[in-house]
């Protein structure tokens, strides 16, 4: 037995230490002169040379490189500082990194020998309330050539990487799946470090060197704060990079790395043709000058109300709403909701779940039902709504008022097959009581005139894994789901220019109802605590579903409906079957 590849806590659940400036300075003390570690031989491409990098609106860095991994650097004609560095070379491009000894500041510098253009990434700790989160500012410039005018071109931000996905294996042995479905964020699955169960997101930069070579950065904001950058060759699928930060045990990670990978696919762009601009999310609000290192970072845990069980009980007692009118909670998500169905009105049935008590229903009309758990004497009235996504397949949802954990059921019933699947949302979960948890219940429908199967059931599927589907919920409210692992998905919010913008992710599961019809959920854990459930119809490209949310304004169940577009698919199922779980779903 070698044990499982899974961590004790997933990244969004780790209580990372709030490191002090002194602790960080102490941990950095040796790498200023020692330079970053490397599993691969370092490059001596600049050994013995002096290079002066001039940047636009940024520092001028004058380097003199020693014969080994030592350099001296002056910043803006200041005093020369000796430092250790690590450099790696890919094609005409060298990436080097060093820390300024005695400081919490360092650089990652990318130089293209062919064009003499350079990108300087200044990095520092203790620049955000959480000191461990690495800050970055990017400057574009060139290597000064004595007697030569400054070149006009620069390496530049781009959306040319948007939509790509790669499997990478570093020389450290670290294996990841990395997706760039946004021009401002990225999504990554740690296959070797965390077992690949969930994917996570971080703000990112994408910089074009030439048609083949691009610079990528990622900061693991809201997690460890670790910064990663690499130059990738999209044709050779090789990378050279650098990682700087503190891991879950507060150990310093500072190394340069080489990697090789596999191309996983390309998602569609939704920007107008001809729009190849990068950095679509402005660093500061309109009319404001961004501070050094500023960027828009989605910090959901910071704004999420964190409630106790007593507070949840109180707020649910005070206000519980199911399918409020158009201006109610979550109404924006229902702008493209299809027509509801009254087919259930007047019917009586039992949903017999294999792994939970059977639910008995009397549907009084198109929006009112009565439910009770089998064996209970009394019925409870509830407001519901129902939609027929595909002939014979009805999704309906309702809250179970009076249950200890304020349950809500999102149910897909296939009346042609006699099968039912329920995503049973509930509160009073371990981390925050108002954060939704979910159980998936499989079973059959019992009603007059319908004979259900004995063994057949809906089942979890990986048929959605790797797909990306955009959802337009309402004018101006468009997102895209990337089903990046069998157990998590990521959502990307489009900007007004229809570029991928902010992105986040959460645990998820996918159930196959019929060919082209999938019932899925996602949990907005350490985010807003919402349980989202949708029935995705790949034939009509429309989804319908219900959201279940508890916050300071109360408990709500609301309708969700969107027009969808298929954005593409990554070839990734094989990684989960072979490299993580070893099972076939």
């Amino acid at each position, binding site marked *: 037995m070698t044990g499982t590849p899974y961590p004790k806590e997933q990244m969004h659940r780790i209580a990372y230490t709030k490191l002090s400036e002194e602790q960080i300075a102490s941990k950095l003390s040796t790498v200023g002169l020692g330079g970053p570690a490397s599993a691969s031989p370092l490059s001596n491409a600049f050994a013995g040379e002096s290079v002066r990098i001039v940047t636009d609106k940024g520092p001028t860095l004058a380097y003199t490189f020693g014969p080994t991994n030592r350099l001296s650097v002056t910043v803006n004609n200041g005093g020369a500082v000796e430092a250790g560095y690590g450099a790696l070379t890919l094609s005409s491009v060298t990436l080097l990194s060093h820390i300024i000894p005695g400081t919490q500041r360092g650089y990652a510098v990318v130089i293209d020998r062919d064009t003499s253009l350079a990108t300087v990434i200044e990095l520092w700790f203790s620049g955000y309330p959480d000191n461990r989160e690495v800050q970055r500012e990017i400057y574009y410039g060139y290597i000064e050539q004595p007697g030569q005018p400054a070149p006009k071109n620069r390496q530049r931000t781009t959306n040319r990487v948007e939509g790509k996905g790669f499997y990478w294996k570093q020389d450290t042995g670290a294996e990841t799946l990395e997706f760039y479905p946004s021009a401002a964020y990225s999504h990554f699955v740690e296959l070797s470090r965390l077992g690949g169960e969930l994917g996570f997101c971080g703000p990112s930069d994408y910089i074009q060197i030439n048609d083949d070579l691009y610079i990528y950065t990622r900061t693991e904001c809201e997690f460890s704060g670790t910064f990663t950058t690499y130059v990738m060759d999209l044709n050779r699928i090789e990378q050279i990079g650098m990682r700087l930060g503190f891991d879950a045990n507060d150990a310093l990670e500072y190394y340069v790395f080489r990697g090789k990978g596999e191309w996983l696919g390309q998602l569609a762009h939704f920007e107008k043709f001809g729009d190849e601009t990068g950095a679509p999310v402005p660093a500061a609000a309109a009319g404001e000058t961004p501070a050094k290192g500023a960027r828009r970072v989605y910090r959901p845990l910071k704004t999420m109300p964190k409630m106790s069980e007593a507070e949840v009980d109180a707020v649910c007692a005070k206000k519980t709403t199911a399918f409020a009118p158009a201006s109610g909670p979550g109404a924006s998500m229902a702008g493209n909701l299809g027509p509801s169905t009254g087919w259930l009105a007047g019917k009586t049935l039992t949903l017999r779940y294999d792994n939970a008590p059977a639910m008995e229903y009397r549907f009084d009309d198109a929006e009112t039902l009565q439910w009770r758990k089998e064996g209970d004497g009394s019925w409870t009235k509830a407001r519901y709504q129902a939609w027929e996504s595909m002939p014979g397949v009805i999704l309906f949802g309702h809250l179970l008022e009076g249950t200890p954990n304020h349950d809500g059921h999102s149910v897909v019933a296939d009346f042609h097959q006699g099968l039912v699947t329920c995503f049973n949302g509930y509160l009073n979960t371990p981390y925050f009581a108002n954060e939704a948890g979910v159980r998936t219940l499989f079973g059959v429908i019992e009603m007059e005139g319908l004979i259900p199967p004995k063994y057949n059931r809906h089942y979890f599927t990986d048929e959605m894994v790797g797909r990306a589907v955009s959802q337009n919920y309402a004018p101006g409210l468009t997102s895209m789901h990337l089903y990046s692992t069998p157990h998590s998905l990521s959502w990307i919010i489009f*900007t*007004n220019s229809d570029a991928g913008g902010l992105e*986040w992710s959460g645990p998820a599961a996918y159930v196959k109802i019929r060919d082209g019809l999938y019932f899925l959920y996602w949990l907005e854990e350490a985010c807003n605590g919402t349980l989202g459930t949708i029935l995705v119809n790949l034939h009509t490209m429309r989804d319908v579903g219900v959201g279940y949310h508890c916050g300071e304004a109360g408990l709500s169940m609301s309708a969700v409906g969107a027009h969808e577009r298929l954005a593409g698919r990554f070839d990734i199922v094989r990684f989960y079957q072979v490299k993580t779980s070893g099972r076939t779903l």
Partner: protein
Amino acid sequence: MSKNTKPTRRSFLKGSALLAVPLAAAAPAAVIAEDQLKARLARLEDEAAIRDLHQTWLRGVNARAADTVRPLFADPKSTRLDQTVRTVAADHAGQPDTIEVSADSESAAGQFPCTVEIETAIPQDCTLARMAHAQGSGFVRRIERRVLKVEYVKASGAWAIAKVEFAPV
């Protein structure tokens, strides 16, 4: 206020018509004509001043420059424009602009066909909407044809805006 003006085709025609009347009526007719010309000149100057005021207001609104817009109003409390209006542009495909100055030249009303870019914020009632706002989006913009109805008053010899209304076409 400048008294210089260029003769227009219409004023030339009016002058020619006056020359055609009998000589006996020439003296009082000349006085009347002069009064009419003065009144007409005053009206044209009022219209030109209002048009200038309108253009300045338009530029201020489109630049979202409150400091530029505020002094153009007779009552500073009336300067507040519907915050959903992002930009206003002349609708050259619409009816001609009209400016009607009152007989006492103390008030005026203008109608200006225009296209209005209207921005509506998406309610932050779900995660997606909150994320959209966090990235500087979170609104819907649309362009509609409207008629800008503006009321003007003369205060201390200068025209000022009294009221602005975007009316349906």
